[in-house]
């Protein structure tokens, strides 16, 4: 019995940095073409046991295709996929210890909720008398006990999603593929289910691959996030790294809000100075990159790193502008500050005081600044 307490995780879980760790799944130069359209393009990726791996990317970038190859519904055009070191190219879906939750749910319309969840168990070697208990467990997990007797067309979209989730979890597979599992749930239930998923994952040691359009969800649940575009992996990293140290403007822009400024970098001491517009001071940036003198580059700043002041602060990277837009989000407000040359800088402030009058208002002249370590320098 493994220790059931999730808090008992003394060492940091990071098998991907361990060169000796054997991956559970390994994509080796996998390409998938539909006719002459390349959906997955020469992809290398290792996913480790007990990982909660999130796939993020715009619609049509190949996330579902990747999952379908793992489940066994699509064969790679080129390359191999290894599961525990075995090439699974020739293994049919019903022989893989992999279960998938379909994007369209794919619930059996002629079966009740109960029978849908029991479907996989009846096909497994689980003794018949244990099936009802397992189904009840699953129903409780997704809070669908009351609807066990209903057919899929008699329940709501979110409820269907929960049934699909329960059905894919029922067999406790080695690898669970979740294609946008929580998209149709309301925020509260979604958060509950996210923690439920993480708990299941810790309890069962199942490896999860999850597709989501919700970055917050990816940040919450994932051990690592992969950002995809046009069938390629753009970056694969842990949530903090991918958020604070994106390797490209694409990733910085895809995850969270960001202001991107284009300019030319020059090294001054151990800091880069990026000159970017006439009449504006150069932006100072700490970066591990090595750039050639006068190399064109981008400075990316997250809005929450930008401070906003009524008076000019004595600091670095200070810019003056006018507030042109305010987005009120309750706990925080986003200000769009337009500089003299037209550039918009996004700044975010916590609304720490309960005051319906805002600290800053439209058309107000303000100063923004961020520290040297807060901006991200990105190569073109």
């Amino acid at each position, binding site marked *: 019995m493994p220790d059931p307490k999730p808090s008992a995780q003394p060492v940091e879980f990071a098998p991907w940095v361990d060169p000796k760790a054997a991956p559970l799944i390994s994509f080796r130069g996998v390409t998938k073409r539909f006719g002459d359209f390349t959906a997955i393009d020469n992809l290398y990726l290792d996913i480790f046991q007990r990982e909660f791996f999130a796939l993020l990317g715009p619609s049509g970038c190949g996330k579902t295709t990747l999952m379908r190859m793992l*489940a*066994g*519904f699509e064969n790679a055009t080129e390359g191999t996929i290894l599961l525990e070191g075995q090439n699974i190219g020739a293994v*049919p*879906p*019903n022989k893989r210890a*992999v*279960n*998938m939750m*379909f994007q*369209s749910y*794919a*619930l*059996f*319309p*002629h079966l009740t909720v109960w029978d849908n969840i029991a*479907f*996989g168990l009846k*096909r*497994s070697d689980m003794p018949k008398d244990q099936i009802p208990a397992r189904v009840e467990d699953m129903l409780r997990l997704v809070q669908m006990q009351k609807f066990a007797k209903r057919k899929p*067309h008699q329940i709501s979209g979110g409820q269907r999603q929960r049934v699909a989730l329960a*059905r894919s979890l029922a*067999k406790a597979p080695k690898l669970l593929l979740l294609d946008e599992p929580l998209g149709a749930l309301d925020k509260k239930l979604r958060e509950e289910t996210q923690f439920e998923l993480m708990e299941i994952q810790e309890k069962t040691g199942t490896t999860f691959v999850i597709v989501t359009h919700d970055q917050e969800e990816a940040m919450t649940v994932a051990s690592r996030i992969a950002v995809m575009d046009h069938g390629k992996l753009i970056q694969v990293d842990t949530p903090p790294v991918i958020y604070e140290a994106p390797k490209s403007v694409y990733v910085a822009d895809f995850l969270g809000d960001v202001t991107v400024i284009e300019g030319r970098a020059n090294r001054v001491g151990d800091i880069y100075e990026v000159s970017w517009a006439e009449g504006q001071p150069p932006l100072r940036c700490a970066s591990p990159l090595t750039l050639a003198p006068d190399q064109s580059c981008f400075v990316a700043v997250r809005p929450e790193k930008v401070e906003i002041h009524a008076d000019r602060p004595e600091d670095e990277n200070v810019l003056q502008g006018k507030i042109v837009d305010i987005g009120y989000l309750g706990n925080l407000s986003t200000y769009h500050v337009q500089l003299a040359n037209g550039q918009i800088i996004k700044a975010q402030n916590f609304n720490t005081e309960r005051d319906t009058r805002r600290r800053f208002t439209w058309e107000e002249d303000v100063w923004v600044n961020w520290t040297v370590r807060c901006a991200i320098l990105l190569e073109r």
Partner: protein
Amino acid sequence: MRRLLLIAIPYAWLVALFLVPFLIVVKISLSDVQLSIPPYTPTLEFSAGWTGIRDFFSQLDFENFVFLTEDSLYWKAYLSSLQIALVSTALTLMVGYPIALAMANAEQAWRPTLMMLVILPFWTSFLIRVYAWMGILSTEGFLNQFLLWTGVISEPLTILNTRVAVYIGIVYTYLPFMILPIYATLEKLDVSLLEAAEDLGCTRRQAFWLVTAPLSKPGVIAGCFLVFIPAIGEFVIPSLLGGSQTLMIGKVLWEEFFSNRDWPVASAVAVVLLLILVIPIILFQRNEQRQREAEQ
């Protein structure tokens, strides 16, 4: 008012083309045979006034129906019709389902063509096609010649004028009525359901029996009724392909009507046939309705 009109039109249609003829047939079935034109009595004469109408009703009776139960020919014919219709419906299903399944699994681009091929036989006369089967199935027919030539058999087979020929004829004629509704349900079937079944541990074959088969049930039921109902009253196929030994109620009806000129008995046969058919028709209606409710 407009709604009433909309409802009135189909009802008027039903009354004029189904209910009125049916009532006429019922009336004839209650009459007595007579050598005259029309060949039965009584006929309603309004000139005699109220007493004429009363006379008319007093002469109607159930004699012909009693007669049907007395002569074993009739119930034997009903029974054998029922049996032939059931067997041929089952055979049509066995032939039609795989065809519908193959059509639904064919490339999207091919489906209209395949559909065309299924409907194509309707473009030639039904009679000509049945005669063609006579040419194929007779002792000197193409089938026997071919089998003799390949050496599978040494003596020609007698197929024509047996029940087998009737089965072949009915299966051939009604096959499209079986294929089309099944194809319609199979085509709508979501492929990801089969994938989900496989994902959950089913083999392809299990996935068929556990997912495809139950989900195509409405199509199968519709197809079976569309074959069974006309097959039970079938007249042309048994008389042309079934020979004299094959007893079917449609043939009996025809003979009563045209050979014996016994319209009242023929009408009684028709009324009983209709009553037998009303049961499956009601079942069919209920199936359709349930299907519609399920789709909502």
